[in-house]
């Protein structure tokens, strides 16, 4: 920085933990009494100051408060007292020592409030003379060193920090770092850092100071301190003791850190050119969401030029609820059953084979949903090879493969690849999946997409059918380290459309994020909404209850401007639903 930040701060004992470690490269420090610090700031002679709270509301003051530290108390503060020779209830006047306006205003608020002496007249006296004036039936506000060294005749000593705490339950804030609104970020950060360094140093202070600095003074400007501060300001203002004005902290920098995106990368990506890993990485890390979606949307239109969005009339079932569920599925005109065989036991393969046969033979439903791990598990449990297991299921009528939620990176596992090759060799097709929120990083997701692309290329080159689609789902854990929010889901869909040039369709699998978010995904590369069932409800987690109602799916597709198309497992049969008549009204 070319010019140092000019700091005005009080030289009191309680200030040094905040001021002593100010970086001299960054700050130029002037110690002064509180009123002078405020004046320096007001006259533009200082950029930032450790100033009494009351001075934030001086006429013409438009300062911001720096977050992080303050000089406050949370109970006994020792150094801000009402004192007298007689009990407070007998006082006829209170003199206000002018050295600290904040303390003086606090005293007045407390006299009118919890101390029950709203009636008492007050009079200002010269700074430092409070204890001298406290005689007979005259009480006084005394602060600082004077309060710490009182003559023994002053037997009434009311700690104002304590009274405030007992009354409001909150800390009290005496002084804050405040400065001009455009104070540079590094200065705001520098104030914080100085305080962070100063805090542990308190323990090394002389014994006489240590207790005061570590027990009586509270330095954190946290939520509780901010509440105390706001309460004081509101009470002071409504009593006419503080000037008008609002309290505002310095806000964060308005722009989140971004790395620059190579200028032609989006344009190239939007042409559907195969992206190398570095380009994909750059897009993933830096492309604004809207731009990433726009590029993916371009690719979507290149690949699927019709204004159509597909979905699969299908429902989930397990081996345990098979009969009832299969009947319900065919009643609801499902085309397919998504079978979840569960944890494999010795008879799971037999039961799955029987289930597939029943679903096809008795209910006319195509079965899919069995994934690589299911196949491997069932084969091991049944003591047969995966190939033999698969052959039995295919013979029973299995028509699709894959689909269960997949952790990023699964595609890199040799067994996963082997199972999918096997399925491909039997002509089975299905979606690859990617689930967000299982503990993977953004890089893991990208690696998953790139590995999938490579695997797909190998499959197609070997004459096997490959994946029909990638289906992206999010667990929506909300955990801070997961980055599996709706936004991440949308970005992953867009990125997948750009990376997977050899996978035909992209499914925005939406039950966790809702159909409204799914509509946004239709403008970010997705052309399919996956399985859903007429008259079906799923995922009633707290705070979320999205239906998987096929009518709702078609309604959402339609109002987003697309024709809904019911598809089968591999998009060979497509039933276009004629558009509903345009409504009179604007609802969409």
């Amino acid at each position, binding site marked *: 920085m070319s010019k140092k930040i000019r700091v005005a701060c009080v030289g009191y004992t309680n200030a040094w933990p905040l001021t002593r470690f100010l970086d001299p490269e960054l700050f130029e420090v002037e110690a002064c009494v509180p009123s002078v610090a405020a004046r320096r700031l007001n006259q533009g002679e200082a950029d930032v100051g450790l100033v009494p709270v009351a001075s934030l509301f001086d006429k013409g003051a438009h300062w911001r408060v720096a977050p992080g530290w303050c000089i406050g108390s949370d109970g006994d503060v020792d150094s801000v007292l009402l004192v007298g020779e007689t009990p407070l209830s007998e006082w006829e006047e209170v003199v206000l020592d002018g050295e600290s306006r904040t303390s003086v205003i606090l005293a007045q608020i407390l006299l009118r409030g919890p101390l029950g002496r709203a009636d008492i007249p007050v009079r200002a006296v010269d700074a430092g003379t409070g204890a001298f004036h406290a005689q007979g039936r005259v009480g006084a506000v005394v602060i600082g060193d004077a309060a710490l060294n009182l003559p023994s005749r002053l037997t009434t000593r009311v700690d104002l920090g304590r009274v405030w705490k007992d009354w409001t339950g909150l800390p009290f804030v005496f002084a804050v770092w405040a400065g001009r609104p455009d104070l540079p970020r590094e200065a705001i950060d520098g104030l914080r850092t100085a305080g962070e360094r100063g805090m542990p140093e308190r323990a090394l202070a002389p014994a006489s100071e240590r207790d005061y600095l570590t027990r009586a003074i509270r330095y954190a400007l946290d939520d509780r301190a901010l509440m105390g501060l706001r309460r004081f300001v509101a009470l002071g203002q409504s009593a006419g003791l503080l000037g008008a004005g609002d309290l505002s902290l310095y806000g964060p920098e308005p*722009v*989140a850190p971004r790395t620059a995106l190579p200028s032609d990368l*989006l344009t190239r990506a939007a042409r559907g050119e195969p992206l190398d890993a570095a380009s994909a990485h750059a897009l993933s890390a830096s492309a604004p969401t*809207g731009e990433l979606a726009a590029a993916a949307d371009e690719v979507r239109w290149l690949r699927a030029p019709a204004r159509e969005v597909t979905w699969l009339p299908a429902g989930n079932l397990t081996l345990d609820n098979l009969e009832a569920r299969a009947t319900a599925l065919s009643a609801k005109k499902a085309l397919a059953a998504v079978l979840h065989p569960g944890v494999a036991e010795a008879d799971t393969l037999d039961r799955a084979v029987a289930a597939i046969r029943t679903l096809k033979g008795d209910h006319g439903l195509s079965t899919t949903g069995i994934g690589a791990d299911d196949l491997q598990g069932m084969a091991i449990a049944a003591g047969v090879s995966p190939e033999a297991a698969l052959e039995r299921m295919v013979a029973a009528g299995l028509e699709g493969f894959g689909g269960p939620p997949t952790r990023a990176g699964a595609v890199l596992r040799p067994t996963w690849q082997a199972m999918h090759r096997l399925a491909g060799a039997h002509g089975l097709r299905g979606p690859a999946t990617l689930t967000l929120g299982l503990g993977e990083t953004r890089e893991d997701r990208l690696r998953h997409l790139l590995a999938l692309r490579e695997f797909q290329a190998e499959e197609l080159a070997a004459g096997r059918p490959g994946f029909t689609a990638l289906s992206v789902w999010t667990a929506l854990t909300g955990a801070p380290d997961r980055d599996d929010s709706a936004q991440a889901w*949308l970005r992953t869909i867009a990125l997948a459309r750009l990376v997977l040039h050899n996978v035909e369709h992209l499914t925005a699998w939406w039950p966790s994020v*809702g159909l409204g978010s799914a509509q946004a995904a239709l403008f970010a590369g997705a052309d399919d909404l996956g399985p859903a069932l007429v008259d079906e409800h799923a995922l009633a987690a707290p705070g979320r209850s999205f239906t998987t109602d096929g009518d709702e799916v078609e309604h959402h597709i339609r*109002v987003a401007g697309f024709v809904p198309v019911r598809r089968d497992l591999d998009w060979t049969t497509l039933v276009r639903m004629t558009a509903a008549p345009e409504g009179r009204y604007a609802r969409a």
Partner: protein
Amino acid sequence: MVTELSPLTRRRVQDRGLADIAEKLAAGVRLDFDDGMRLFTTPDLGTLGLLANRERERRHGDLTYFNRNLHINATNVCEATCIFCSFSRLKTGDPNAYTMSLEEALGRVRALRGELITEVHVVNGLNPDLPWSYYLDLLRGIKAERADLHIKGFTAVEIHYFAVKFGKTYETVLRELMEAGLGSLPGGGAEIFHPRARKKLCDDKVDAEGWLEVHRTAHELGLRSNCTMLFGSIETLEERVDHMLRLRALQDHTGGFQTFIPLRFHHENNKLERLREPTGFDSLRTYAVARLMLDNIDHIKAYWIMLGIELAQLALSWGVDDLDGTVREERIYHMAGARTPQTLGRADLVQLIRDAGRVPVERDTLYHVVAEA
């Protein structure tokens, strides 16, 4: 900070026939009614979002505001018969009707003693059984309990109702409420201004002119306020654009609106149950068009409690810069079937914003920074 559109987006804007609008926006030229209709009817939600996002970032960068507040709906007894409302024409004594005693209402404030909330949002039914003193005492009571709370209270519909019921001018009503502690007006009750839709929706409550007059009066008295639009019930797109333009015209005179809040229609437990609710597509395009049309209103808010947190997060790329609060005790939308959790922890909200690549700012009612996010 001006966010440049990429060459890709510029071409797409051109292809969608929106180049002239994009140029107007870049040059700071105000959009007109026809522009608004073209934006509403463009089939490309993505490009619309990019235009709105550019405006959003030009104003606020990545800053995304939220606050911590308490909602008090002190009574749901209401004389009005708005067909979209689940409170409609409830009388004292009806099974679902309630009116809080002052002690009850203040108990809700007291219960949050230890929390850095900065605002109480007070909105009520038009209850014929309550005296004027009830409202003044409520405000005074809140202030006595928590002097530091900003009271954002009473929609223009309520202000109008008080004026008629208690024989006062808007100005007197507002002055007396301000005296008792009112800090600003919420934006509710605007619904749809156009008389065709308004007659169908809420024939017996204050008309557009009255609503706007209340806000004009409030602004002249130094109160800031918000403004809203109920979308997705029976209004046309033309009526939405018309609504925005009426707000924009008043704002040109007073500058008192802080935030525009499109309110998504909810259909349960009211007379419009047969209507489908507006979808995410409709919500997102409405936020985006609002950001582009309302060039003189600083903020566009997505009220997450009615939208769902997922869509609210996505809306941050469609012109929205405010997600409202970590709300306590919301009743109006929940009686209409909103299934969102009633509160979202502050940390969750901050995370949601960060996950969207934005910068969270905890604000007070008047957009001062309250605490570090």
